[in-house]
Protein backbone atom coordinates (compact mmCIF):
# COMPACT_ATOMS: atom_id res chain seq x y z
CA UNK A 1 0.00 0.00 0.00
CA UNK A 2 2.87 2.35 0.86
CA UNK A 3 4.42 1.82 -2.56
CA UNK A 4 1.03 2.07 -4.31
CA UNK A 5 0.47 5.53 -2.84
CA UNK A 6 4.07 6.47 -3.62
CA UNK A 7 3.66 5.49 -7.28
CA UNK A 8 0.32 7.36 -7.42
CA UNK A 9 1.89 10.46 -5.89
CA UNK A 10 4.85 10.38 -8.27
CA UNK A 11 2.54 9.90 -11.24
CA UNK A 12 0.53 12.95 -10.19
CA UNK A 13 3.71 14.98 -9.78
CA UNK A 14 4.93 13.83 -13.19
CA UNK A 15 1.58 14.66 -14.82
CA UNK A 16 1.44 18.10 -13.22
CA UNK A 17 4.68 18.94 -15.00
CA UNK A 18 3.51 17.61 -18.36
CA UNK A 19 2.33 19.84 -21.16
CA UNK A 20 -0.68 17.62 -21.79
CA UNK A 21 -2.00 18.35 -18.31
CA UNK A 22 -1.90 22.11 -18.89
CA UNK A 23 -3.61 21.79 -22.27
CA UNK A 24 -6.20 19.49 -20.71
CA UNK A 25 -6.90 21.84 -17.80
CA UNK A 26 -6.95 24.94 -20.00
CA UNK A 27 -9.34 23.29 -22.45
CA UNK A 28 -11.92 22.39 -19.82
CA UNK A 29 -11.51 25.45 -17.58
CA UNK A 30 -11.23 27.73 -20.61
CA UNK A 31 -14.32 26.30 -22.26
CA UNK A 32 -16.37 26.89 -19.16
CA UNK A 33 -15.11 30.48 -18.94
CA UNK A 34 -15.78 30.91 -22.65
CA UNK A 35 -19.40 29.80 -22.25
CA UNK A 36 -19.97 32.59 -19.81
CA UNK A 37 -17.92 35.24 -21.59
CA UNK A 38 -19.71 34.60 -24.88
CA UNK A 39 -23.09 34.69 -23.18
CA UNK A 40 -24.02 31.07 -23.89
CA UNK A 41 -25.55 30.89 -20.42
CA UNK A 42 -27.90 33.75 -21.26
CA UNK A 43 -29.26 32.15 -24.41
CA UNK A 44 -32.41 30.07 -24.37
CA UNK A 45 -32.44 26.86 -26.40
CA UNK A 46 -35.33 24.41 -26.07
CA UNK A 47 -36.23 25.88 -22.71
CA UNK A 48 -32.70 25.68 -21.24
CA UNK A 49 -31.03 28.79 -19.97
CA UNK A 50 -28.57 29.91 -17.28
CA UNK A 51 -26.58 27.25 -15.48
CA UNK A 52 -28.54 24.34 -16.94
CA UNK A 53 -27.89 25.64 -20.48
CA UNK A 54 -24.15 25.94 -19.73
CA UNK A 55 -23.92 22.52 -18.16
CA UNK A 56 -25.85 21.03 -21.06
CA UNK A 57 -23.26 22.39 -23.49
CA UNK A 58 -20.53 21.21 -21.14
CA UNK A 59 -21.97 17.69 -21.37
CA UNK A 60 -21.84 17.79 -25.16
CA UNK A 61 -18.25 18.98 -25.08
CA UNK A 62 -17.32 16.43 -22.41
CA UNK A 63 -18.79 13.60 -24.47
CA UNK A 64 -16.45 14.41 -27.34
CA UNK A 65 -13.30 15.67 -25.66
CA UNK A 66 -13.02 13.81 -22.35
CA UNK A 67 -12.75 10.24 -23.72
CA UNK A 68 -10.12 11.07 -26.32
CA UNK A 69 -8.12 13.22 -23.91
CA UNK A 70 -8.04 10.42 -21.36
CA UNK A 71 -7.20 7.81 -23.99
CA UNK A 72 -4.40 9.81 -25.62
CA UNK A 73 -2.75 10.89 -22.38
CA UNK A 74 -3.09 7.60 -20.56
CA UNK A 75 -2.62 4.97 -23.21
CA UNK A 76 1.08 5.85 -23.30
CA UNK A 77 1.57 5.50 -19.56
CA UNK A 78 2.68 1.87 -19.52
CA UNK A 79 3.41 1.20 -23.20
CA UNK A 80 5.42 4.45 -23.42
CA UNK A 81 7.40 3.63 -20.28
CA UNK A 82 8.05 0.19 -21.73
CA UNK A 83 9.31 1.55 -25.04
CA UNK A 84 11.56 4.16 -23.44
CA UNK A 85 12.98 1.62 -20.93
CA UNK A 86 11.66 3.66 -17.99
CA UNK A 87 9.69 0.59 -16.94
CA UNK A 88 12.85 -1.53 -16.98
CA UNK A 89 14.57 0.80 -14.56
CA UNK A 90 11.65 1.60 -12.25
CA UNK A 91 10.70 -2.05 -11.96
CA UNK A 92 14.24 -3.09 -11.13
CA UNK A 93 13.43 -1.82 -7.63
CA UNK A 94 11.47 -3.99 -5.22
CA UNK A 95 8.02 -2.73 -6.10
CA UNK A 96 5.22 -5.21 -6.66
CA UNK A 97 3.49 -5.14 -10.03
CA UNK A 98 0.20 -4.67 -8.18
CA UNK A 99 1.45 -1.50 -6.50
CA UNK A 100 2.96 -0.18 -9.70
CA UNK A 101 -0.08 -0.78 -11.91
CA UNK A 102 -2.80 0.35 -9.53
CA UNK A 103 -0.66 3.19 -8.22
CA UNK A 104 -0.22 4.47 -11.77
CA UNK A 105 -3.95 4.16 -12.34
CA UNK A 106 -4.83 5.98 -9.13
CA UNK A 107 -2.42 8.81 -9.91
CA UNK A 108 -3.61 9.14 -13.47
CA UNK A 109 -7.25 9.09 -12.43
CA UNK A 110 -6.67 12.04 -10.12
CA UNK A 111 -5.08 14.07 -12.89
CA UNK A 112 -7.72 13.34 -15.51
CA UNK A 113 -10.76 13.71 -13.26
CA UNK A 114 -9.84 16.78 -11.23
CA UNK A 115 -9.61 19.34 -14.09
CA UNK A 116 -13.03 18.30 -15.44
CA UNK A 117 -14.52 18.34 -11.97
CA UNK A 118 -13.00 21.75 -11.24
CA UNK A 119 -14.34 23.07 -14.57
CA UNK A 120 -17.78 21.90 -13.46
CA UNK A 121 -17.36 23.71 -10.15
CA UNK A 122 -16.16 26.79 -12.03
CA UNK A 123 -19.35 26.67 -14.10
CA UNK A 124 -21.45 26.41 -10.98
CA UNK A 125 -19.62 29.36 -9.41
CA UNK A 126 -20.18 31.46 -12.55
CA UNK A 127 -23.83 30.43 -12.50
CA UNK A 128 -24.17 31.39 -8.85
CA UNK A 129 -22.54 34.77 -9.50
CA UNK A 130 -25.19 35.39 -12.11
CA UNK A 131 -27.84 34.81 -9.50
CA UNK A 132 -28.76 31.17 -10.06
CA UNK A 133 -29.85 28.72 -7.37
CA UNK A 134 -27.29 26.11 -6.36
CA UNK A 135 -28.57 22.77 -7.71
CA UNK A 136 -26.79 20.49 -5.19
CA UNK A 137 -28.44 17.28 -6.28
CA UNK A 138 -27.72 17.90 -9.94
CA UNK A 139 -24.09 18.81 -9.27
CA UNK A 140 -23.60 15.73 -7.14
CA UNK A 141 -25.13 13.39 -9.72
CA UNK A 142 -23.36 15.08 -12.60
CA UNK A 143 -20.01 14.79 -10.77
CA UNK A 144 -20.73 11.10 -10.19
CA UNK A 145 -21.43 10.61 -13.90
CA UNK A 146 -18.25 12.46 -14.84
CA UNK A 147 -16.35 10.26 -12.39
CA UNK A 148 -17.86 7.20 -13.98
CA UNK A 149 -17.11 8.33 -17.57
CA UNK A 150 -13.53 9.20 -16.64
CA UNK A 151 -13.12 5.83 -14.95
CA UNK A 152 -14.32 3.72 -17.86
CA UNK A 153 -11.97 5.43 -20.31
CA UNK A 154 -9.10 5.25 -17.89
CA UNK A 155 -9.74 1.52 -17.54
CA UNK A 156 -9.85 1.19 -21.32
CA UNK A 157 -6.62 3.19 -21.69
CA UNK A 158 -4.78 1.02 -19.14
CA UNK A 159 -6.12 -2.09 -20.82
CA UNK A 160 -4.83 -0.95 -24.24
CA UNK A 161 -1.59 0.30 -22.75
CA UNK A 162 -0.84 -3.08 -21.24
CA UNK A 163 -2.14 -5.37 -23.96
CA UNK A 164 -0.48 -3.52 -26.84
CA UNK A 165 3.27 -3.23 -26.66
CA UNK A 166 3.70 -0.39 -29.14
CA UNK A 167 2.62 3.13 -28.24
CA UNK A 168 1.70 3.86 -31.85
CA UNK A 169 -0.61 0.86 -32.06
CA UNK A 170 -2.12 1.71 -28.68
CA UNK A 171 -2.78 5.28 -29.84
CA UNK A 172 -4.27 4.04 -33.10
CA UNK A 173 -6.50 1.59 -31.24
CA UNK A 174 -7.64 4.41 -28.94
CA UNK A 175 -8.72 6.52 -31.89
CA UNK A 176 -10.62 3.63 -33.43
CA UNK A 177 -12.45 2.85 -30.17
CA UNK A 178 -13.26 6.53 -29.62
CA UNK A 179 -14.60 7.06 -33.16
CA UNK A 180 -16.71 3.90 -33.02
CA UNK A 181 -18.20 4.77 -29.64
CA UNK A 182 -18.84 8.34 -30.74
CA UNK A 183 -20.45 7.21 -33.98
CA UNK A 184 -22.73 4.91 -32.07
CA UNK A 185 -24.21 7.62 -29.90
CA UNK A 186 -26.28 8.94 -32.75
CA UNK A 187 -25.25 8.64 -36.36
CA UNK A 188 -24.74 4.89 -36.56
CA UNK A 189 -27.66 4.12 -34.25
CA UNK A 190 -30.02 6.23 -36.31
CA UNK A 191 -28.65 4.71 -39.50
CA UNK A 192 -29.32 1.24 -38.17
CA UNK A 193 -32.83 2.17 -37.14
CA UNK A 194 -33.62 3.82 -40.44
CA UNK A 195 -32.38 0.88 -42.45
CA UNK A 196 -34.56 -1.49 -40.44
CA UNK A 197 -31.96 -4.23 -40.99
CA UNK A 198 -31.53 -4.96 -37.32
CA UNK A 199 -34.16 -5.26 -34.66
CA UNK A 200 -34.85 -2.41 -32.28
CA UNK A 201 -33.58 -4.58 -29.43
CA UNK A 202 -30.15 -4.70 -31.03
CA UNK A 203 -30.11 -0.92 -31.39
CA UNK A 204 -31.18 -0.47 -27.75
CA UNK A 205 -28.55 -2.97 -26.58
CA UNK A 206 -25.84 -1.19 -28.57
CA UNK A 207 -26.85 2.08 -26.97
CA UNK A 208 -26.85 0.58 -23.48
CA UNK A 209 -23.41 -0.95 -24.01
CA UNK A 210 -21.85 2.30 -25.17
CA UNK A 211 -20.49 4.18 -22.13
CA UNK A 212 -20.56 7.51 -23.99
CA UNK A 213 -24.23 7.07 -24.85
CA UNK A 214 -24.98 5.92 -21.31
CA UNK A 215 -23.25 9.01 -19.90
CA UNK A 216 -25.06 11.25 -22.38
CA UNK A 217 -28.47 9.89 -21.53
CA UNK A 218 -27.79 9.90 -17.79
CA UNK A 219 -26.36 13.42 -17.75
CA UNK A 220 -29.04 14.95 -19.95
CA UNK A 221 -31.78 13.28 -17.92
CA UNK A 222 -30.59 15.37 -14.97
CA UNK A 223 -31.69 18.49 -16.82
CA UNK A 224 -34.48 17.11 -18.93
CA UNK A 225 -36.20 14.29 -17.01
CA UNK A 226 -38.45 13.57 -20.00
CA UNK A 227 -35.44 13.29 -22.34
CA UNK A 228 -37.30 15.17 -25.03
CA UNK A 229 -34.10 16.69 -26.38
CA UNK A 230 -32.51 13.42 -27.43
CA UNK A 231 -33.57 10.52 -29.51
CA UNK A 232 -35.98 7.59 -29.26
CA UNK A 233 -33.39 5.20 -27.81
CA UNK A 234 -32.91 7.39 -24.77
CA UNK A 235 -36.63 7.79 -24.43
CA UNK A 236 -37.13 4.03 -24.60
CA UNK A 237 -34.49 3.48 -21.89
CA UNK A 238 -36.10 6.06 -19.66
CA UNK A 239 -39.46 4.44 -20.19
CA UNK A 240 -38.10 0.96 -19.43
CA UNK A 241 -35.80 1.74 -16.49
CA UNK A 242 -37.38 4.80 -14.94
CA UNK A 243 -35.39 7.93 -14.13
CA UNK A 244 -33.76 6.66 -10.91
CA UNK A 245 -32.55 3.36 -12.34
CA UNK A 246 -31.40 5.14 -15.47
CA UNK A 247 -29.08 7.31 -13.37
CA UNK A 248 -27.96 4.29 -11.33
CA UNK A 249 -27.21 2.38 -14.52
CA UNK A 250 -25.42 5.38 -16.06
CA UNK A 251 -23.18 5.52 -12.99
CA UNK A 252 -22.62 1.85 -12.24
CA UNK A 253 -22.24 0.37 -15.74
CA UNK A 254 -19.18 2.42 -16.78
CA UNK A 255 -17.54 1.77 -13.40
CA UNK A 256 -18.03 -1.98 -13.83
CA UNK A 257 -16.66 -1.91 -17.37
CA UNK A 258 -13.75 0.29 -16.27
CA UNK A 259 -12.93 -2.09 -13.43
CA UNK A 260 -13.19 -5.10 -15.71
CA UNK A 261 -10.93 -3.62 -18.40
CA UNK A 262 -8.35 -2.36 -15.93
CA UNK A 263 -8.32 -5.74 -14.18
CA UNK A 264 -7.78 -7.58 -17.48
CA UNK A 265 -4.99 -5.08 -18.14
CA UNK A 266 -3.50 -5.88 -14.75
CA UNK A 267 -3.62 -9.62 -15.38
CA UNK A 268 -1.88 -9.08 -18.74
CA UNK A 269 0.71 -6.88 -17.01
CA UNK A 270 1.44 -9.69 -14.57
CA UNK A 271 1.28 -12.61 -16.96
CA UNK A 272 3.04 -11.20 -20.02
CA UNK A 273 6.65 -10.15 -20.41
CA UNK A 274 7.12 -6.73 -18.87
CA UNK A 275 9.48 -5.54 -21.60
Amino acid at each position, binding site marked *: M*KNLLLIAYLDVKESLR*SKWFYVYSVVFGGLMALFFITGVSDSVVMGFTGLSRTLLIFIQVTIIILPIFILITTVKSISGDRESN*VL*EYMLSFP*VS*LKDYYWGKMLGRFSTVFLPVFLALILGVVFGMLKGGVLPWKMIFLYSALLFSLSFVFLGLAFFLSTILKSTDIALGASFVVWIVLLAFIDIALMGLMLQNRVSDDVVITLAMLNPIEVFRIGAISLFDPELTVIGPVAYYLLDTLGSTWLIVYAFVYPIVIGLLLSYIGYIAFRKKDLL
Partner: protein
Amino acid sequence: MLAIAKDVTKSFMGTKVLDNVNLTINQGDRIAMMGPNGAGKTTIVRALLGFYHIDSGEIRVNGADPIKDRVEVLKYISFIPQLPPPVKLSIGELLSFVEKSSAISREKIFLESERMDLDLKNQLNKPFFKLSGGMKQKLLIAIALSKKSNLLIFDEPTANLDPKGREKFYELLTEIDPSCSTLFITHRLDEIEGLVNRQIYMDLGKVVEDEKI
Protein backbone atom coordinates in the same frame (compact mmCIF):
# COMPACT_ATOMS: atom_id res chain seq x y z
CA MET B 1 24.69 -20.11 -4.65
CA LEU B 2 23.29 -16.64 -5.39
CA ALA B 3 21.54 -17.17 -8.67
CA ILE B 4 20.95 -20.11 -10.91
CA ALA B 5 19.48 -20.42 -14.38
CA LYS B 6 18.82 -24.02 -15.33
CA ASP B 7 18.04 -25.05 -18.92
CA VAL B 8 16.45 -21.68 -19.59
CA THR B 9 14.81 -21.19 -22.95
CA LYS B 10 13.12 -18.06 -24.20
CA SER B 11 11.80 -17.23 -27.65
CA PHE B 12 10.51 -14.00 -29.13
CA MET B 13 8.19 -14.39 -32.10
CA GLY B 14 9.51 -17.84 -32.89
CA THR B 15 13.19 -16.91 -32.56
CA LYS B 16 15.05 -18.64 -29.76
CA VAL B 17 16.90 -15.92 -27.85
CA LEU B 18 17.94 -18.15 -24.95
CA ASP B 19 18.65 -21.74 -25.85
CA ASN B 20 18.98 -24.04 -22.82
CA VAL B 21 21.10 -21.59 -20.90
CA ASN B 22 22.74 -22.85 -17.72
CA LEU B 23 24.34 -20.29 -15.49
CA THR B 24 25.31 -20.17 -11.85
CA ILE B 25 26.36 -17.07 -9.97
CA ASN B 26 28.08 -17.71 -6.66
CA GLN B 27 28.78 -15.35 -3.84
CA GLY B 28 31.84 -13.22 -4.64
CA ASP B 29 31.74 -13.91 -8.38
CA ARG B 30 32.84 -10.97 -10.51
CA ILE B 31 31.61 -11.82 -13.94
CA ALA B 32 32.25 -10.21 -17.29
CA MET B 33 29.53 -11.34 -19.67
CA MET B 34 30.42 -10.85 -23.30
CA GLY B 35 29.17 -11.76 -26.72
CA PRO B 36 27.96 -10.23 -29.97
CA ASN B 37 24.71 -8.28 -30.24
CA GLY B 38 21.72 -10.59 -30.02
CA ALA B 39 23.67 -13.24 -28.11
CA GLY B 40 21.11 -13.19 -25.28
CA LYS B 41 23.11 -11.32 -22.62
CA THR B 42 20.47 -8.70 -21.84
CA THR B 43 17.70 -11.29 -22.10
CA ILE B 44 19.21 -13.54 -19.44
CA VAL B 45 19.77 -10.52 -17.18
CA ARG B 46 16.17 -9.41 -17.69
CA ALA B 47 14.99 -12.93 -16.93
CA LEU B 48 17.01 -12.87 -13.68
CA LEU B 49 15.32 -9.57 -12.82
CA GLY B 50 11.87 -11.06 -13.46
CA PHE B 51 11.03 -9.05 -16.58
CA TYR B 52 10.56 -12.08 -18.80
CA HIS B 53 8.51 -15.22 -18.38
CA ILE B 54 10.80 -17.97 -19.58
CA ASP B 55 9.42 -20.70 -21.88
CA SER B 56 11.12 -23.54 -20.02
CA GLY B 57 13.73 -24.12 -17.37
CA GLU B 58 14.09 -22.60 -13.97
CA ILE B 59 15.54 -19.42 -12.48
CA ARG B 60 16.22 -18.83 -8.81
CA VAL B 61 17.80 -15.77 -7.25
CA ASN B 62 18.60 -16.05 -3.55
CA GLY B 63 16.45 -19.17 -3.68
CA ALA B 64 13.38 -17.29 -4.90
CA ASP B 65 11.52 -17.14 -8.21
CA PRO B 66 12.01 -13.69 -9.82
CA ILE B 67 8.47 -13.73 -11.20
CA LYS B 68 6.55 -14.98 -8.18
CA ASP B 69 8.70 -13.33 -5.53
CA ARG B 70 9.90 -10.29 -7.45
CA VAL B 71 9.87 -7.93 -4.47
CA GLU B 72 11.97 -10.30 -2.39
CA VAL B 73 14.39 -10.97 -5.26
CA LEU B 74 14.83 -7.32 -6.20
CA LYS B 75 15.54 -6.24 -2.63
CA TYR B 76 19.06 -7.57 -3.01
CA ILE B 77 19.83 -6.71 -6.62
CA SER B 78 21.17 -3.42 -7.96
CA PHE B 79 20.79 -2.83 -11.65
CA ILE B 80 22.22 -0.22 -14.00
CA PRO B 81 20.79 -0.25 -17.51
CA GLN B 82 22.81 0.32 -20.65
CA LEU B 83 21.26 3.71 -21.34
CA PRO B 84 19.75 5.92 -18.65
CA PRO B 85 15.99 5.93 -19.23
CA PRO B 86 14.23 9.27 -19.82
CA VAL B 87 12.57 9.28 -16.39
CA LYS B 88 10.41 12.40 -16.14
CA LEU B 89 10.56 12.60 -12.36
CA SER B 90 12.71 15.27 -10.77
CA ILE B 91 15.89 14.06 -9.10
CA GLY B 92 14.28 14.63 -5.70
CA GLU B 93 11.26 12.53 -6.67
CA LEU B 94 13.42 9.77 -8.10
CA LEU B 95 15.39 9.70 -4.86
CA SER B 96 12.11 9.53 -2.88
CA PHE B 97 11.07 6.54 -4.97
CA VAL B 98 14.39 4.82 -4.41
CA GLU B 99 14.47 5.67 -0.70
CA LYS B 100 10.96 4.42 0.01
CA SER B 101 10.90 1.39 -2.26
CA SER B 102 14.35 0.09 -1.41
CA ALA B 103 15.07 1.53 2.03
CA ILE B 104 18.17 3.38 0.86
CA SER B 105 19.13 6.51 2.73
CA ARG B 106 19.30 9.72 0.73
CA GLU B 107 22.48 10.68 2.54
CA LYS B 108 24.17 7.52 1.30
CA ILE B 109 23.20 8.39 -2.29
CA PHE B 110 24.53 11.92 -1.83
CA LEU B 111 27.75 10.46 -0.51
CA GLU B 112 28.18 8.07 -3.43
CA SER B 113 27.33 10.87 -5.89
CA GLU B 114 29.96 13.14 -4.40
CA ARG B 115 32.50 10.38 -4.82
CA MET B 116 31.50 10.32 -8.50
CA ASP B 117 31.95 14.12 -8.64
CA LEU B 118 28.22 14.65 -9.00
CA ASP B 119 26.61 17.42 -7.00
CA LEU B 120 23.02 16.37 -6.41
CA LYS B 121 21.95 18.63 -3.57
CA ASN B 122 21.60 21.71 -5.77
CA GLN B 123 19.71 19.92 -8.52
CA LEU B 124 16.93 18.14 -6.68
CA ASN B 125 14.17 19.96 -8.57
CA LYS B 126 15.69 19.30 -11.97
CA PRO B 127 13.96 16.63 -14.07
CA PHE B 128 16.18 13.56 -14.34
CA PHE B 129 15.95 13.46 -18.14
CA LYS B 130 17.40 16.98 -18.36
CA LEU B 131 20.72 15.91 -16.87
CA SER B 132 23.55 15.18 -19.29
CA GLY B 133 24.08 11.54 -20.29
CA GLY B 134 27.13 11.23 -18.05
CA MET B 135 25.41 12.79 -15.04
CA LYS B 136 22.43 10.49 -15.42
CA GLN B 137 24.68 7.48 -15.52
CA LYS B 138 26.61 8.68 -12.47
CA LEU B 139 23.37 9.08 -10.53
CA LEU B 140 22.24 5.58 -11.48
CA ILE B 141 25.62 4.23 -10.40
CA ALA B 142 25.40 6.14 -7.10
CA ILE B 143 21.93 4.70 -6.46
CA ALA B 144 23.07 1.18 -7.33
CA LEU B 145 26.10 1.38 -5.08
CA SER B 146 24.05 2.82 -2.20
CA LYS B 147 21.68 -0.11 -2.20
CA LYS B 148 22.58 -2.95 0.10
CA SER B 149 22.66 -5.68 -2.52
CA ASN B 150 24.39 -8.99 -2.88
CA LEU B 151 24.26 -8.88 -6.69
CA LEU B 152 25.10 -5.86 -8.82
CA ILE B 153 24.19 -6.05 -12.48
CA PHE B 154 25.71 -3.54 -14.86
CA ASP B 155 24.64 -3.48 -18.49
CA GLU B 156 27.45 -1.54 -20.23
CA PRO B 157 27.58 0.92 -17.34
CA THR B 158 30.33 3.19 -18.67
CA ALA B 159 28.91 3.78 -22.14
CA ASN B 160 28.03 7.40 -21.29
CA LEU B 161 30.94 8.25 -19.03
CA ASP B 162 33.97 10.33 -19.92
CA PRO B 163 37.42 8.81 -19.17
CA LYS B 164 37.57 10.50 -15.76
CA GLY B 165 34.10 9.26 -14.88
CA ARG B 166 35.06 5.74 -15.89
CA GLU B 167 38.15 5.88 -13.77
CA LYS B 168 36.12 7.01 -10.75
CA PHE B 169 33.57 4.31 -11.36
CA TYR B 170 36.16 1.53 -11.52
CA GLU B 171 37.80 2.94 -8.42
CA LEU B 172 34.49 2.71 -6.54
CA LEU B 173 34.00 -0.85 -7.72
CA THR B 174 37.25 -1.90 -6.08
CA GLU B 175 35.71 -0.88 -2.75
CA ILE B 176 32.63 -3.10 -3.07
CA ASP B 177 32.22 -5.70 -0.36
CA PRO B 178 34.06 -8.85 -1.59
CA SER B 179 31.09 -11.05 -0.74
CA CYS B 180 28.91 -9.05 -3.15
CA SER B 181 28.74 -10.51 -6.66
CA THR B 182 28.85 -8.41 -9.81
CA LEU B 183 27.77 -9.13 -13.35
CA PHE B 184 29.01 -6.82 -16.10
CA ILE B 185 27.63 -7.00 -19.58
CA THR B 186 30.42 -5.55 -21.63
CA HIS B 187 32.15 -5.50 -24.96
CA ARG B 188 35.39 -4.19 -23.45
CA LEU B 189 37.01 -6.78 -21.22
CA ASP B 190 40.28 -4.83 -21.12
CA GLU B 191 38.59 -2.06 -19.11
CA ILE B 192 37.33 -4.30 -16.34
CA GLU B 193 39.93 -7.03 -16.45
CA GLY B 194 41.23 -6.24 -12.98
CA LEU B 195 37.72 -6.21 -11.54
CA VAL B 196 36.50 -9.61 -12.67
CA ASN B 197 37.39 -13.16 -11.74
CA ARG B 198 35.24 -14.97 -14.28
CA GLN B 199 34.27 -14.46 -17.90
CA ILE B 200 31.25 -15.80 -19.68
CA TYR B 201 30.88 -15.68 -23.43
CA MET B 202 27.44 -16.02 -24.99
CA ASP B 203 26.51 -16.53 -28.61
CA LEU B 204 23.23 -17.38 -30.34
CA GLY B 205 21.43 -17.71 -27.03
CA LYS B 206 23.90 -20.15 -25.49
CA VAL B 207 26.71 -19.92 -22.98
CA VAL B 208 29.64 -20.97 -25.11
CA GLU B 209 32.44 -20.23 -22.68
CA ASP B 210 32.52 -19.89 -18.90
CA GLU B 211 35.88 -19.74 -17.21
CA LYS B 212 37.63 -18.37 -14.16
CA ILE B 213 40.28 -15.75 -14.73
